[in-house]
């Protein structure tokens, strides 16, 4: 399932996939795969993304 909340949060901070990937120490393709729902990141990477975007885990990754 696509993670549109992550994409929206990244866009709100005016960050490209490449810039976010550099901040959290992964490749651009990994950020792209998470946004497309092709890859389930580890909790460590989820936390790094949340810190980079100033959001909580619930806000970005909790599925209702």
């Amino acid at each position, binding site marked *: 399932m696509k993670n549109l909340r992550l994409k929206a949060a990244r866009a709100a901070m005016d960050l*490209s996939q490449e810039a976010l990937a550099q901040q959290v120490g*992964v490749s651009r*393709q990994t950020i*792209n795969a998470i946004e497309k729902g092709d890859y389930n990141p*580890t909790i460590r990477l989820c936390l790094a993304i949340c810190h980079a975007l100033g959001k909580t885990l619930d806000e970005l990754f909790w599925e209702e």
Partner: protein
Amino acid sequence: MNYYLLGVLFGIVFALGAFLVAIRKKRHSGGCKYDERQMAGRGKAFQAGFFTLLIAGAVCNIWDYASPLPGGSFPWNVGAMLLGVAVFAVTAIHFDAYVAMNDNPRRFLTMGSFFIIAMAMTGLANLYSDRPERRMIGILNLSVGFVWVIIVAALLLHRRGAKKEEE
């Protein structure tokens, strides 16, 4: 100058250069860096390559046992190894896990292309050599070059597909 000596000298210079590049890379950038998704992809690629090598090697040796393969079993086993390497590389490329995050893909492709040319030239020189015992080495050179053709082609196709991806 003797061509054989020239080849040996070229090999020594090439190996020394590769060694120095490896040392410099280790000191300055901490070696290849892969993220968690790439590590998982490399695991799957190693698995695919290993099982391909295992199955291809078994087929070659069973076949050779039943009826001797032309040229003996050695070149066929090397072929099985090359097949395993090719399967590893293509699977890793599929998972974006062949070129490390701190590697420059363009430089990698350039080096790969030079390697293909070097292998093709050495292979053809050996294949058309006056000494028949060098022909098998020529076939192996060309096989290694062909594996690199597959790797470079897979990388180019993958990069083309990645560029089409919307951000």
